[in-house]
C-alpha cells in the first residue's frame, strides 16, 4: 500500500492504518530499535508505543516522509528505553559503541555530571551539522543518528572502511572544537 493510502486510513481513523503501517514498516522500525535494544521484548514494547503515538499524532500531522517519520520516533523511543534500562549497566547494544565514540566529542573540561540544557545542545548540533560538507554530514548522521555500523556506511557511500572511519574521526574532532567554541567549556 502506498504511504498516501496509509495516511488516508489514519485520517479516516480506520484502525487498519496501524496494520498497514506494521506490514510495510514493521521490519524497518524493529531494525532501528535493535540498534539500542538487544532484547526482542523491549523492541516489541517500543513498537507498540510507536503505533500508539503515531495514531494520536496523525491527524493533524501529515508526515511528508512516513518512513523517516516512523524511524525518527522509533529511534528516540528505543534510546529512551535504553537509557532507562541499560545506561547504568550496559547490555551489548550497537548504540553503546556509538556512544563511546561520541564521548570523544565532550569538551575536556566538562564534567560528566555537568547538566546541559537539552534544547540548547540540540540547536548547537543543528548549527554544527550545517557547517559540514554534505558527504561528512551524511556519514556523521548515518553513524550517530541511525547508528549504522561503519562497514554499512562505507558500502552505502562507496567508501573504503578506513575512509569512513577517518571521516568520522575528523568530524568528531570538529564537533568537539565546535562545542568548545560554543561555550561548553568554561
Amino acid at each position: 500500500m502506498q504511504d498516501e493510502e496509509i495516511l488516508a486510513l489514519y485520517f479516516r481513523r480506520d484502525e487498519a492504518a496501524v496494520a498497514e503501517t506494521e506490514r510495510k514498516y514493521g521490519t524497518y522500525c524493529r531494525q532501528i530499535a535493535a540498534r539500542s535494544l538487544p532484547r526482542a521484548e523491549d523492541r516489541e514494547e517500543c513498537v507498540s508505543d510507536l503505533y500508539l503515538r503515531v495514531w494520536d499524532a496523525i491527524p493533524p500531522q501529515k508526515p511528508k516522509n512516513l518512513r523517516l517519520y516512523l524511524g525518527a520516533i522509533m529511534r528516540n523511543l528505543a534510546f529512551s528505553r535504553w537509557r532507562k534500562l541499560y545506561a547504568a549497566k550496559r547490555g551489548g547494544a550497537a548504540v553503546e559503541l556509538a556512544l563511546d565514540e561520541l564521548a570523544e566529542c565532550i569538551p575536556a573540561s566538562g564534567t560528566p555530571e555537568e547538566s546541559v540544557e537539552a534544547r540548547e545542545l540540540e540547536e548547537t548540533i543543528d548549527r554544527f551539522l550545517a557547517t559540514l560538507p554534505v558527504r561528512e554530514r551524511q556519514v556523521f548522521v548515518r553513524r550517530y543518528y541511525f547508528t549504522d555500523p561503519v562497514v554499512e556506511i562505507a558500502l552505502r557511500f562507496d567508501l573504503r572502511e578506513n575512509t569512513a572511519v577517518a571521516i568520522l574521526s575528523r568530524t568528531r574532532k570538529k564537533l568537539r572544537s565546535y562545542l568548545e567554541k560554543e561555550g561548553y567549556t568554561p
Partner: protein
Amino acid sequence: MKAEDLYEAMGSIRMEYLEESEMQMKKKKLPRRTLLVAAVIGAMGIVGAAVSFSLRGVARADVGVDATRPLPEWTEYEVEGEKDTGAVQPQPVSEPEEHEWEPEGGWQDSLTLDSTLCSGEVVTAYIRVAGISPEIAASLAQRGGEYYFDIGSLDANGEERSDSSCGVSYVSYDEAAQTALIRVDVHGVAEDCTEIRYSPTLCRGAEPRPVVYYEDVIIPVTPSSGLHAKIDMLFPQGDYRGEMRAVEATVCAGYVDIAVDVTPLREIADEGVIVPVKRTQIPHGERVTVPDAMLDAIHENFISWWDRGDAALADVQLHYRDGTTQTVKEDLPSAYAADWVVEGGLGGYEECCDIDRISLRYVTTQAIDLRQVVSITVGGVEYPLTGEAA
C-alpha cells in the same frame, strides 16, 4: 555533559539532514535546462510497434480518452515503435545527469513518458518502465504483492515536493516487451510549474532499500483550464454542531472541487475543550501533549467533513451538451479518491481548530471533456458553469 546527551540531541536534528543521509539515491544534478528534442526513432520492429500501440491504448482507456477526439489537456509523446504520430509531442529529454553515487545495479534508464493529463492542480502521467520480468509484473498486478513501485523522488520546477503529494500505481504490462505501464498522479501542482522531474523506485516487501533506482523522467506541465460556478448549499446538520455550506464548484479535466465554508471547531467545541497544547522539548523536536477531549473533538470534526460531504455531495452531477448526465461519485477510482483538502495544509493541533474553508475534491478516473460540460447539479440545484475550456 555525557555522550548520551549528545546522542539524544542528535535525535532532533532537522528532517532534511535525515533525508539527505537516508535517501542515498539523491542525485547530484548538473545545472541544466531541459531540452525538448525530437526523440531518435530507431529501427522499429513489428513487435515493438504492436507493443507501443497496446500500452498507449491501455493508457487512453484508463483515462477515458478517445483517440479520434483527444482532450486538449491530454498529450501523447513519441515513443519508439509507436505508429500513431498524428499529434504526438517529442519525447522530453534532458542532458545526462551526473550521479554522486551508484546504487547496486546502477541507475536504470528505463522510463519513457507515454502520455499526460494536465488538469489544474493535478497532473497524471503514464510512464513506461522497461526491464520488468513477467514474475515481477505478476506481483505488481496483485494488490499487496511483494513488489511495488514507490514514489521515489519528485520535483516541480526544481523544488522538491513532499511524498504525500504524489501517488503511483501499476496499470498494465506487455510481456513481449517486458515493459510495465504505471500511472503517476501528482497533486498540488503550482500554477507556474512547467515541468516535473520524477523517478519512482521499485521496491520489494519490507526491504529498507529499493531494488531498482531509475533515472528521472521529465513530465511537461501543459496549460489547462477550469469551469466555475458560484453555488449555495447548506449541508444537513445531522448530529453535528458546525455549519457546512458549499460556495463554489470548480470542474477541471481530472477532478471536481467543491469549496465548502465550515464553522471553525474552536467556535463549536464545548468550553474548555480547545486549549493551548503543552509543548516540551524532546529529542527530535518537541512533544506536544493534547488533552484527550481535544483530540477526540478534532478527529470527530475531520470525520464530520467526510461523512457530511460524502452524503450531501453523493448526487453531484455534470450535464453535457448532448443532454447526458454523469454522476461524479460513480466515476471514482477508489475509496480514497474523494478527499477533503485544505489550502496551506492543516497546521498543528491548534491551527486546525481554526480552519474555516475546505475543498471536497473528487478525482475521477475518467477525464472530463470540459468543452462538452455546461452545468453542474449540487444539492438538487443546477448551476451553469462559466469559464473557457482549453
